[in-house]
């Protein structure tokens, strides 16, 4: 029950954070989430900051560039967007650590299946990602140029994408083989 309430609270908080347009209220929300995170607040806060840094920088620099070309700029709006994004990520990371998502969604069998599938994919992907990182490190003899780093990242992304696509197809076939997808009365195409 606790997990379900937390998940409901999370959904309400997300709607609230996207509906409120006063930076002070959002800052207060941020403070509240930090209190909720307790002793983990600095760790989660830092992780959230790293996660949004690129996005926020791009938006802010783009906005500043617009100002240079004479576009009307609202500093309040820029602050509002950045606080909102940071609040949403901080909130998500905080609650992800507190909610047992399987228990929270246990009211729906289909949602539980979906989350189980997602979780079962996250673990092998985390391992694969770690292996890609270590293999790149193992073959690095000097500081790589930007182009070489892009090349490595692109190859890793292609590999991860291929793997995800292959695994998704296999999982879908396995689920079909175990009768998860009930055939439609009109569905008589066995090879699709």
């Amino acid at each position, binding site marked *: 029950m606790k997990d379900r309430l937390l998940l409901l609270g999370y959904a309400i908080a997300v709607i609230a954070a996207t509906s409120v347009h006063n930076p002070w209220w959002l800052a207060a929300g941020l403070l509240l989430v930090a209190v909720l995170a307790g002793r983990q607040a600095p760790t989660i806060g830092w992780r959230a900051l790293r996660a949004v840094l690129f996005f926020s920088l791009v938006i802010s620099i783009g906005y500043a560039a617009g100002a240079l070309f004479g576009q009307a700029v609202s500093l309040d709006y820029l602050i509002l967007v950045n606080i909102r994004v940071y609040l949403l990520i901080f909130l998500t990371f905080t609650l992800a650590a507190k909610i047992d998502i399987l228990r929270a969604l246990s009211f729906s069998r289909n949602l539980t299946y979906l989350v189980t599938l997602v979780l079962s994919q996250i673990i092998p992907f985390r391992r694969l990602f770690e292996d890609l990182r270590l*293999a*790149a490190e193992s*073959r690095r003899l000097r500081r790589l140029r930007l182009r070489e780093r892009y090349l490595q990242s692109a190859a890793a992304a292609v590999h991860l994408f291929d793997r995800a696509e292959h695994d998704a197809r296999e999982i879908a076939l396995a689920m079909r083989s175990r009768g998860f997808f009930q055939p439609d009365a009109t569905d008589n195409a066995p090879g699709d």
Partner: protein
Amino acid sequence: MLQAIEVSYRLPEGQEILRAIDFRLAREEKVVLLGANGTGKSTLLKVLNGLLPPTTGTVCYDGRVIDRAALREAAFHQRFRREVVLLFQNPDTMLFNPTVFDEIAFGPRQLGLDDVDGRVHHWAGELGVAPLLERTPFGLSGGEKQRVCLAALLILEPKVLLLDEPTANMDPRSTGWLVDFLADLKQTTLVTTHNLSLAGEFGDRCLVLGEDHRLLYDGPIQDFLSDHDRLTAANLVHRHRHRHGATEHSHFHIHEWD
């Protein structure tokens, strides 16, 4: 040459993967690392390659401790990465260049070596991948990828080869070829496998990791392979009921893996 001193490794989640592992590899020695799935063979190779820092204990190469500080020194980092190389179990993780040629040339280009073209052609010929040089690595078969990865490592002329299940993606013909190829190499090699029928071909000495993540055995491989109690303790043989034609036996039978 390469030494693990009381090396333990624990995952951030707390799970212990290696416990007080202690051994030394001599120059040009060929050693096999055996162990059932999940005993920590791959992790041990990554620790020896300086990719994962041991939770406790140390790894030494040529008398120098391999830690973050040592690997931050550009000169030592380059020397260590050139002399101690690791072949990953999944070759896909090691391939990121647009062509096989670029893949093999990746190391020498970083080092600024001369005659990169000649070196690439030499090692591509040695590994039997010369006809694939213009192809993209991702389009190759598992065995071909494994050969490309090996060529990309051997072109650096390393002193220590750490090979993680090198035959895992190979068909029987390629496996036979690899066994012969590795036997002719002069480098120190540490090869992981759980294939007992091949283990004796990779070296004379074996290290065995037990399911408690400790070093269960370090000694001559033939002694280990003929010791059924040790093989069973290491979970490297299994027993099951089986039949001979129409006769059904109710006794247990021991088979090798793979």
